């Protein structure tokens, strides 16, 4: 493992000690799972809309370069300025140059995972531009100087008490209260002033429609609409996979997204933006910029299997259903995208040398695959990345960086033994005789026996028993 490698095991170990955190996640995820199940109680409907959603995403991927060109052409025709960024550095530079041109001092942000991927807030603040998160969850996390722990519910790791203390400590006019309505109202008052005076609004994009040059955003709070309507300049940042072909592709994807994410039939707002303020219109931004970010996605796209990662519509349901995520929470992943999708996306975006441990943060239980609304074969990709991590190659950055001679030898020895009936029966007979004498302090066995009894080898193998009982061999 390289020096820059992110240590998931260490971070998760700390999270596991935090009983409060474990309780917060367990309660929240249990609630989300049962509410989602109600939304998709009609199996035939679920199968139908899921197949449709997957087909929409696959069709978009099948024509990705053409659709991006079409999106660019239609956005441009509508007056939306389109920018392309190969890396997050380029994307940040584009955003900054727009800010500088309009002399922006204050930015209000709607929720955007791509901007998290860009570390945009830190980048702008270093350059003297105040960057205020306006989604309540993101605002809480920003006040706490932390990272989101979930892509849909950024502050899900905190309970009301913790947030009450945070507000009291960080907001000047705050009185201590654990009343959620009052806490929400406080944030409303603070942020309204900011919306009214911000120079630029930044948002993400849930879907961009090539056919019409339309940016779709879904949200409940209204901060997304505020950020994209009140400031004179709106900058939308999106990963290049977020395009869909037709306007009619939007309804099924939104339906899957909101029901999978938060078990709502629809969010309070579906906001479709197709142009800046036109002559005669009285509000809306005068400029809209769309920044299309690659950041490794075109590389992912080149591989037939890994490409499926790009189907994702960022609903976060895989997190809610992941037994590992539920135990350790989002921060243990130390990534903008945690949970199952993060464990396959981050290693591909940032390289296996840094993120090679993440595909192992998974028991391969397939709970995520079962509920993924666009049928991403998450666990298969997980397995593929495990293989890439220990074998040098070109498909993924950092392939082979986790190769270990010792581990490779073990598997080689294993395969030679297990592929030869003679060697296998000799080895297993030996283990049946002597295996139980192995001390629990042996590596691996030690990890196992921390909370479990030592597995006991049977006196005779099934092979031996079957022979004894006269079970035919052919």
């Amino acid at each position: 493992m390289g020096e820059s490698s992110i240590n998931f095991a260490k971070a998760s170990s700390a999270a596991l000690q935090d009983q409060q955190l474990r309780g917060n996640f367990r309660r929240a995820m249990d609630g989300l799972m049962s509410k989602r199940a109600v939304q998709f109680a009609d199996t035939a409907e679920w199968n139908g809309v899921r197949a449709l959603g997957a087909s929409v995403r696959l069709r978009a991927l099948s024509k990705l370069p053409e659709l991006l060109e079409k999106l660019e052409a239609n956005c441009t025709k509508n007056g939306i300025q389109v920018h392309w960024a190969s890396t997050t550095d380029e994307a940040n530079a584009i955003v900054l140059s727009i800010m500088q041109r309009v002399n922006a001092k204050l930015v209000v942000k709607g929720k955007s995972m791509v901007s998290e991927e860009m570390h945009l807030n830190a980048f702008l603040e270093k350059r003297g531009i105040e960057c205020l998160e306006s989604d309540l969850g993101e605002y809480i996390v920003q006040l706490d100087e932390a990272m989101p722990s979930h892509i849909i519910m950024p502050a899900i790791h905190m309970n009301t008490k913790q947030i009450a203390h945070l507000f009291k400590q960080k907001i000047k006019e705050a009185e201590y209260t654990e009343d959620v309505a009052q806490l929400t109202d406080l944030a409303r008052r603070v942020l309204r002033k900011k919306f009214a005076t911000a120079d630029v609004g930044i948002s993400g994009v849930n879907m961009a429609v090539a056919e019409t040059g339309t940016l779709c955003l879904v949200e409940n709070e209204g901060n997304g609409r505020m950020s994209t309507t009140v400031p004179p300049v709106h900058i939308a940042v999106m990963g290049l996979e977020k395009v869909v072909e037709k306007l009619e592709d939007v309804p099924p994807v939104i339906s899957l997204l909101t029901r999978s994410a938060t078990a709502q039939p629809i969010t309070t707002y579906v906001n479709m933006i197709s142009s800046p303020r036109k002559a005669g219109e009285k509000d809306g931004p005068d400029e809209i910029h769309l920044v299309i970010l690659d950041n490794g996605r075109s590389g992912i796209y080149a591989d037939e299997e890994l490409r499926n990662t790009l189907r994702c519509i960022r609903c976060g349901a895989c997190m809610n259903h992941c037994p590992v995520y539920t135990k350790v929470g989002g921060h243990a992943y130390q990534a903008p995208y945690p949970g199952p999708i993060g464990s396959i996306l981050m290693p591909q975006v940032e390289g296996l040398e840094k993120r090679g441990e993440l595909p192992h943060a998974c028991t391969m239980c397939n709970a995520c695959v079962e509920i993924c609304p666009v049928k991403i074969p998450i666990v298969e990709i997980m397995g593929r990345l495990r293989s890439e991590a220990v074998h040098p190659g070109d498909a993924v950055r950092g392939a082979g960086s986790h190769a270990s001679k010792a581990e490779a030898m073990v598997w080689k020895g294993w395969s030679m033994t297990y592929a030869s009936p003679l060697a296998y029966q000799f080895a297993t007979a030996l283990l049946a005789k002597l295996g139980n004498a192995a001390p629990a302090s042996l590596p691996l066995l030690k990890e196992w026996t921390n909370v479990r009894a030592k597995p006991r080898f049977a006196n005779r193998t099934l092979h031996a028993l079957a022979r004894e009982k006269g079970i035919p061999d052919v």
Partner: protein
Amino acid sequence: MSESRNAILGKLRAGRDAHPLTPPESDFAVLRNKRWDGAERLERIKRMMEAVHTEFLETTEADWPTDVQAFLKAQGTRNLLFGPATEAGGRLSAEWAEGGPELIPYADRVETFKERLFDGIDAGITTTLGAIADTGSLIVWPTPEEPRLMSLVPHMHLALLRADALYDTFWQAMTENRWADGMPTNALLISGPSKTADIEQTLAYGVHGPKRLVVVVIR
């Protein structure tokens, strides 16, 4: 950065051409088959929207301006932002009685009255293009006469809904009306007052947008 543009598109094209992908057919039947009969649609819309704290005011074509005024007066609302150049706006100014909440026209660019908009407006009223039974959503297309912020900034949003302008699904509304032929600057679905569950999954209403949404059903 056209360099990046060409590099990205080139890489995508090469990747796709090396491994083309045949997507399955998109079968929209699952949306097409979602149908409710006339009376059921409005029932369902009410039920779904009320579940997320939307209020409903039943009225008629003849009486709606009077009913809206009476409603607002009873709520203690000080003023109402409206679009004077729309047909509905015309009726409001013509039929608004003395002594009610003050009618405030959204007649100029937002820059001229941003402060008041954010600080001094209690309610805003807009028309809608109808509502959707599947999800309980209003369809709102802001226009120069009825700008975008009217349904967002005031603490209460009143939305006029004609009881015969109902659709089964979002998909039906957009395909039947051929939205793809020309999208407006901004098209919205609004399905309740602003809300959040970001504090420990506890629902709270009115976080940034309107605290109350009142659908004025005109029969």
